[in-house]
């Protein structure tokens, strides 16, 4: 089982769209996929029409790991399940801190579903917390959406420094360009500069697309409804590249 996190220390960069569409591309390639929405404000569940379970909240007597497993819901697509960000996961940090060895607790929780999935994709909240540090430790790779602007490049720099300062492996980071508008001079220039600086930047990029914005209307992965093939292809191509870099058989 491989764990891939989708993380950004900056909001509004298309992180949830990336998680949802990559998870869909992964499932479509035949891998049993679990998308975990760890972002309390996240909308992965919304995009799959999955309601947070009220019942789970009332079952506090359950052990935490069991509660995690019980919260898994099948999506409407083959090979793709989801852990929606429900009430319980607002307190994911608390959940993790309750367990011993807080920094590897996430791994322990995910181990419970190890045989059920080939790939687990984590949609992470945009901050640095106990949870995100668990993610940095546990994930095999961390994909980081970056809008090619000056501000985004500064955030990426911060992330790399944080990794170095805290002894996390920077080679886990797989930044990629998100919401790219090649018609904008700034985007083009930023991409050029950043590619020189960060050799790990993924080659495929995700163009800005109004189709992605409409995901909230369709409540489905963009590939399932997009008229323009290109946006769906972009995610599929990006997933292929991530698969190779993560050595997913």
């Amino acid at each position, binding site marked *: 089982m491989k764990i891939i996190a989708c993380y950004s220390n900056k909001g509004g960069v298309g992180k949830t769209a990336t998680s949802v569409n990559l998870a869909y591309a992964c499932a479509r390639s035949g891998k049993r996929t679990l998308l975990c929405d760890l972002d309390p404000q996240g909308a992965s569940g919304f995009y*799959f*029409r*999955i*309601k947070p*379970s009220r019942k789970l909240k009332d079952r506090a007597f359950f052990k935490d790991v069991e509660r995690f497993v*019980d*919260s*898994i*819901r*099948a999506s*409407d697509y083959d090979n793709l*399940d989801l852990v929606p960000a429900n009430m319980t996961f607002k307190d994911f940090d608390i959940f993790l801190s309750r367990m011993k060895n807080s920094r590897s607790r996430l791994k322990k929780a995910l181990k419970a579903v190890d045989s059920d999935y080939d790939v687990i994709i984590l949609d992470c909240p945009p901050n640095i917390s106990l949870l995100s540090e668990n993610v940095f430790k546990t994930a095999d790779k961390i994909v980081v959406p970056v809008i090619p602007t000056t501000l985004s490049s500064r955030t990426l720099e911060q992330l790399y420094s944080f990794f170095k300062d805290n002894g996390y492996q920077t080679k886990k980071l797989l930044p990629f360009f998100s919401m790219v508008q090649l018609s904008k001079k700034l985007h083009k220039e930023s991409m050029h500069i950043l590619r020189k600086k960060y050799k790990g930047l993924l080659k495929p990029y995700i163009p800005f697309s109004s189709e992605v914005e409409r995901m909230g209307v369709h*409540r489905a992965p963009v590939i399932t409804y997009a008229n323009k093939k290109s946006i769906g292809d972009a995610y599929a191509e990006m997933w292929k590249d991530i698969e190779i870099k993560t050595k997913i058989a």
Partner: protein
Amino acid sequence: MESFVYIVHSDVSEKKLNKLLPAKTDYNIQIETGEVVQGVVLDTFDNAALAQSLLLLGLEGRLVLMNLKTGEFLEQEVAGEWRFAKDLSAGLVKELLSGLADLRAFLPVAKVTFHRDRGALLDDEGKTRARYSSLVVHHKKSITCLGSATSLRGYQSGYEELVSLLQNAGAKELTDVFAFYRQLGIKRELYTNKPVLTLDATAPASETAAVIIRAFIQIARRNESGIVADHDTEFLHDYRVSFRKVRSVLSLFKGVYEPEKTSELKADFALIMQSTNRLRDLDVYLMEKENYYKMVPDPSVAGLELLFEYLAKERKKELKKVVKDLQSEEYAARVAALTSLFKSSDKIPTGPKGALPSKLLAAHLVLKRYNQACKIACSIERTTPDSVVHDLRISCKKLRYLMEFFTPLFDEESIKKLIKTLKNLQDNLGKFNDYSVQQAFLRHILDHDLGQFKGNEIQISEAVGALTAMLFRLQKKERNQVMNNFSRFNSEETGLLFKQLFEIAEVE
């Protein structure tokens, strides 16, 4: 994932299911109806697919297979004609059919029209809570629908809701796969070459012999049309094995019928089988074709090709003869006379043992045969002639037949255990015999048929030589294993079991 595989005798519409939902519900049903297509239900003569809960439908360029145990649907494209699982290109359907009945042809059972529907139970946000898939099949004026509902992870209650909805619409859990045929009015007789007979332990032996013979004549005859149509080689095989069993009963139940009548009957049944001997030999040969190609060195392959071309032609000729024979009035009259003779046991004059209670005679015969096999086996050493090994084979075969015939008279589990322990040895002896027969067959070609291969005599002789050498080596290998396999069969435990089962019967 849970599933509910069901049968319902109507086409359950979206409208009907939605009507059955409670008034205040967040759920609704949506069905995507598939295209109506014409197709044909396929299975082997012995229902190998359906017996394994697999329903196979053939349609233009495609196969649809429903697993009636799991509710899963599989599809595969088909290019051109096919009869055997091995003829199919690699695919999901082939995977499931392979190993089911590799020697059996898949034949049309009935013409049908059908459509595959996919349905879902959705919540108020349009999220699927449970799914189902169904196959609605029409045959003449009948209709039936096979379907399966499956749960989705985390949505158990939705699944339960869907199952109860389907049940309210008339769906019943599918427990008997043949209900499908019955509902559609498709007449499909069950076929087995190993019938479970109803025998009476105290009935006179002559009566029991008639029951067994009657059953096997019937099985043999059910294969006649399949032999004529040349669907697959198993028809002839079963036909011959059944008549061989009839002959075995006659010779094993010595003294049950009047000796003269017994000889006459034995000759009658032998005559029926005789005309099919060569066709069966050729079938066995052609079946082994691929193995033979693997056995001989490359330079002999060309000769082997010529040889197999010849054998295939011979088979065609031989089949024509057999078909003509089976369709002749003479054959019909002969078989009809024998069939009617065994309809009741009182038509045949009985011998001195005819009135013995069946179980007593059965026990006696089994034990006698077992002791005989042991005696032969004990005499076999490295230098013993092959003919003795052949005797052992025949003795074991008779022992096996006896135990199979009489299974209903004894503790079924014990007797099945004994038959099973005998199997390895029998396989071993069977192969030993096959290799020997095949060598003789090849020798016959060299001695008598070489004239058929004008200009290619050397190539043929070479191929036959190479093949014979390999067969000889294989036969020797089998022979070397006979002693080991026998001692494995004849353990102390087996001997004890034989005595327990069959000596006690004698006391009774």
